[in-house]
């Protein structure tokens, strides 16, 4: 009956888990992740025309989720805010010893590089999709990712040089 709402419900089934994970991975937002997910789709419904016109509905929804998350962080009291979003320790006894320094290195990246890298690694977005989510040029996405990956490579292999 209400086509946009039904379309959104379909997107929720498809994208809901990934977007929920997006909020859950940010410690400051993890508790309210379910509410933020509902907010994301509420906002998406408000701008269905843009969602239809976007290059990728997935990227558009991530873009909305990002803004919903930022708004939620702004609403939180400063004492509650957790600055860094990545350094989530995974309790796994048999994990690779290099993972922990790598997590520390990711957490130590500049915020813009880290955000771009996580959209790539955790959500498998393409350069174009990340550019739409962050509202930046594709070249900037590429450059940020290249710098971040090279820095991580130096963390793992400090003695390696470029070709």
């Amino acid at each position: 009956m209400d086509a946009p709402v039904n379309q959104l419900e379909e997107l929720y089934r498809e994208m809901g888990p990934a977007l929920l994970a997006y909020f859950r991975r940010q410690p400051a937002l993890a508790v309210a992740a379910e509410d933020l997910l509902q907010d994301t789709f509420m906002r998406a419904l408000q701008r269905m025309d843009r969602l239809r016109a976007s290059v990728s509905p997935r990227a558009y929804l991530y873009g909305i989720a990002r803004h919903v998350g930022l708004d939620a962080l702004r609403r939180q009291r400063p004492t509650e805010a957790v600055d860094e979003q990545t350094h989530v320790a995974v309790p796994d006894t048999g994990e690779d010893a290099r993972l922990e320094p790598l997590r520390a290195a990711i957490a130590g990246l500049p915020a813009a590089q880290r955000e771009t890298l996580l959209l790539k690694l955790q959500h498998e977005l393409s350069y174009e999709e990340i550019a739409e989510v962050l509202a930046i040029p594709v070249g900037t996405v590429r450059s940020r990712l290249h710098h971040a990956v090279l820095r991580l490579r130096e963390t793992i292999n400090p003695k390696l040089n470029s070709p």
Partner: protein
Amino acid sequence: MKPEDLEALLLDRALGELSPAVRELLDEYLMGNPDATRHADTLTATLQLARQAVALPPEMPQRPLEMDTLRRARQTWRWRRLKRETLRLAACAVLGLALGWYAHASRPAPVLAQTSRPEPADVRTIPAEASSGGAVAAPRFWSLAKLQAEQRSRPASASHQESHYQLQWDSPMKMPRVVEEKL
């Protein structure tokens, strides 16, 4: 290939952002360059580890999408949008009417066109001096001073006192005329 270009391509390759054709060409290049291959492998390994480091299994949302809330919200937004558009249209109409009224009110009163035709000019021709009999005909030369003197010598009538004279000379081939315009 410049090292910085190669590195950028290797990074794009490791990030899965190369088109199949470019990737194929790069793979062929790497087969003949062990150093570059080693570098590409370290980049790929780094990214694999980084993916592991930040990976968390996706979880299903506990709550389904609140469809009723969305539908209600949608109705509310529609109503608000309709109200806003109506208000905009009304504001435009009021503004248009106000501007129209202002433009009409501030326009200067129209000047009535002068419909009365001016009285026809009294055209007189200079009397030909040659017509006087007897003497040798005077040359038909004329001058402005001569015409003015002749005008002054005419008896002034009541109607002529309020007249305005104008010299009218249409062509150098014709004699000029004195035109009397009654004021």
